[in-house]
């Protein structure tokens, strides 16, 4: 009998169907792998099981009985334990307290039973003895631990729930080899106990090492469930890609390297920093260089660091032959660098202010303006906004009065008054409509035609395949593969993204 069964579960956010149809069956005593590319609906499916998202339709059965999971607390009560990818630890509490946080043992229902807490935590700490590293003790504050040690605490916390059904969402991303091996031994033990385990990882070697079955999700639908012993990685990736995955990317502009004879717009040599390491590449004037791979593999961190908004520990950046090491975005902007973030609410939009003030800040800086004369600013802003086909009633209306796509156009327009040399695009189309996307990419190609060097990271693989001349695939913070010309296929992109780091 299955421990957990999902029948035709779906979830829509407004008009966006995040999960079209989710069917999933977890048997007792198996490690069930979930695989799907960025935005395939995998995380929505997990959130539904974890109770943080309520499905619109479909049923969930635990041990054959239909259940309603109304929230995270309810999920816990129904026997579902979760390892969170975004660590959910209390930094100012000790390791043992964090492990027992969900169910603190108490005396008389009021006082924390310290002795029981210590004893219980010790069981889970002992599971990783020998591999948990220096400075790891039951009483250490979690805030003082290294990233891999914090991840171990998160695993211990999930294990301490003793839940019959366990979800591990990328539990090994920070762990070293020995820690992963130990963790897999523990998982095998749990299998023998008859627990049902859902496992999400982007490392193909780990998936084949620990997984029993795999369910593939594509475009919000669970496509197929396979026995991992009867298949091979190539077949799994082929399923994730779907049909036509082997076709080379269609692109109007020829990706010939010879076209970029004008020289390098930006050279990056051995760059390391928080979230990425040893990245080297050259983007030519007029080239669109794509950064691909799974979400959060260092692409955004790299772009932000180049722009002076992240940390760089070693390596070198050059723009037009000159050493470029921006200490702040202000510095980077002055030297001809532009950055557009997909998270416009946080990084771009000056909410409540007129459209014109959202277009002009870069111009203020580049032209060292003191006085903002409306008439001359309007003359500068209008062509920039028109180049983006921005729809607005008046420059004086607050930017919030526009749709998301038009807001993003305004944010991009601010870089068009004084042209930069290098344009960094950090998932720029996130959450904007299709026509705005089309306008945006038409403009990006036009800017490339005018000789800008463009770095494009997109979480939508189609955008990379359709626009980038070359694609660097990121995996675990470094570039693992470069796709050029005919190699720029969806299949190759996935394969490189899912390869062992």
């Amino acid at each position: 009998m299955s421990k957990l069964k999902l029948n035709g579960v779906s979830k829509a956010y407004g008009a966006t169907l995040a999960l079209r149809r989710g069917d999933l069956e977890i048997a007792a005593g198996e490690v069930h792998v979930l695989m799907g590319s960025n935005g395939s609906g995998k995380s929505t499916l997990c959130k539904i099981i974890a109770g943080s998202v309520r499905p619109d339709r479909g049923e969930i059965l635990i041990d054959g009985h239909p259940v309603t999971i109304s929230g995270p607390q309810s999920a816990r009560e129904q026997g579902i334990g979760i390892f969170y990818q975004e660590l959910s630890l209390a930094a100012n509490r000790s390791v043992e307290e964090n492990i027992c946080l969900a169910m603190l043992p108490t005396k008389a229902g009021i006082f924390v039973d310290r002795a029981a807490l210590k004893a219980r935590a010790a069981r889970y700490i002992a599971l990783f003895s020998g591999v948990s590293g220096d400075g790891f003790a039951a009483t250490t504050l979690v805030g003082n631990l290294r990233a891999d040690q914090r991840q171990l605490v998160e695993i211990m916390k999930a294990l301490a729930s003793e839940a019959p059904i366990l979800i591990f969402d990328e539990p090994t991303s920070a762990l070293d080899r020995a820690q992963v091996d130990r963790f897999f031994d523990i998982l095998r033990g749990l299998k023998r106990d008859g627990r049902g385990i859902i496992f999400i990882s982007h490392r193909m070697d780990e998936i084949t090492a620990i997984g029993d079955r795999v369910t593939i999700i594509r475009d919000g639908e669970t496509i197929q469930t396979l026995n991992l012993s009867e298949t091979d990685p190539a077949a799994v990736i082929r399923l994730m890609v779907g049909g036509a995955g082997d076709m080379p990317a269609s692109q109007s502009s020829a990706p010939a390297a010879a076209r970029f004879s004008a020289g390098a717009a930006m050279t990056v040599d051995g760059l390391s920093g928080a979230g990425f390491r040893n990245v080297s590449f050259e983007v030519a004037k007029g080239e669109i260089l794509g950064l691909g791979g799974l979400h959060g593999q260092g692409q955004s961190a790299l772009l932000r660091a180049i722009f002076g908004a992240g940390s760089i520990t070693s390596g070198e950046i050059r723009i037009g032959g000159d050493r470029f090491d921006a200490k702040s975005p202000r510095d980077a902007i002055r030297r001809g660098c532009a950055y557009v973030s997909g998270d416009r609410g946080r990084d771009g939009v000056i909410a409540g202010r007129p459209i014109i003030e959202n277009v002009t800040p870069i111009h203020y800086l580049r032209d060292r303006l003191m006085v903002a004369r409306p008439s001359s600013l309007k003359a500068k802003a209008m062509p920039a906004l028109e180049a983006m086909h921005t729809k607005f009633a008046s420059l004086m209306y607050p930017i919030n009065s526009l749709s998301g796509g038009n807001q993003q156009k305004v944010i991009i327009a601010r870089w068009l008054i004084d042209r930069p040399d290098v344009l960094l695009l950090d998932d720029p189309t996130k959450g904007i409509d299709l026509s705005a996307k089309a306008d945006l990419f038409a403009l990006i190609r036009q800017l490339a035609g005018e000789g800008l060097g463009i770095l494009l990271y997109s979480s939508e693989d189609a955008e990379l395949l359709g626009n980038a001349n070359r694609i660097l695939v990121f995996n675990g913070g470094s570039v693992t593969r470069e796709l050029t010309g005919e190699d720029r296929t969806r299949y190759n992109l996935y394969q490189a993204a899912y390869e062992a780091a």
Partner: protein
Amino acid sequence: MTTVVSFIKQPLVIALLLIVALLALGESLSPGFASADQILRLLIVASLLGIVAAGQNVVILGGREGIDLSVGGVVSLSAIIAGNVMNGADGGILPAILACLAAGAFFGLLNGLGVTLLRIPPLVMTLGMLGVLQGLLVVIRNGIPSGRAAPGLSAFVTQPLALGIPGIIWLWIAIGLFMAFMLNRTVFGHRIYAIGSNEHAAYMAGVPVRRMRIGPFMISGMFAAIAGLCLLGYSGSSFANVGEQYMLSSIIAVVFGGTSLAGGKGGYTGTMAGALLLVILQGILTTVNIDESGRQMVFGATLLLLMLFYGRGRAMRA
């Protein structure tokens, strides 16, 4: 109809309607309250408050819980410095102005550095600074006599300068024009709004965030210093904690005028109306014999009511 409603719902319009209503109320309680002479006197007092509130306004617009609780201390200190420097002589006015502005800028700079470099929240930083200033005032007054206002300064504040209107009211009008220009027509002003609205986006668009945090505190210190100087001219001689009341009332004037305490939203025109409104309210409370402590209670309650009235759901949402 809806346009009329939304017009009336604008904070500035509400404030102006309230001003008229309060004047009518004052006149009915005590005939002569709304006479030309009385209104001119109210305007002088409102100018003093309005000048302090100008700096407060800039700090609050800059966001990140921006607030300057030290303005009252700077007003008092400036009044004492000015009294001692000019000591009753017109020739001392210019040196007094320079000394006061320097002191205001200095303490504003300290506030700004504390908030940016030491990352102390503005509320705590400027409250601490207020304590320092109050201690400093005690030390100064124990050593030196407090000094007197120069006749020229007193005349500027209390006697008609042009068109029968005292110089300080002209000064306030000039400051109003200056503030409107600075906030709407300068890059500095646009950057104040930008960091007040979305500091991270401003940073990513190349706004020098740290400098833009220090600047408003210096402006606030200098406006408070100007107000202290004028206050000396108004009262003739400085006394202990003469500026104390301005901490709360300057914040109320700013909020009254529709500036959001969360920053990035509002302007000085509303604040001017707010200052006037508050001074009229103060006048009415005096007319009906409510003493200083009672007035402070009413002011505090007013601020809380304002937060409820304007701010529901947006005022403090950072």
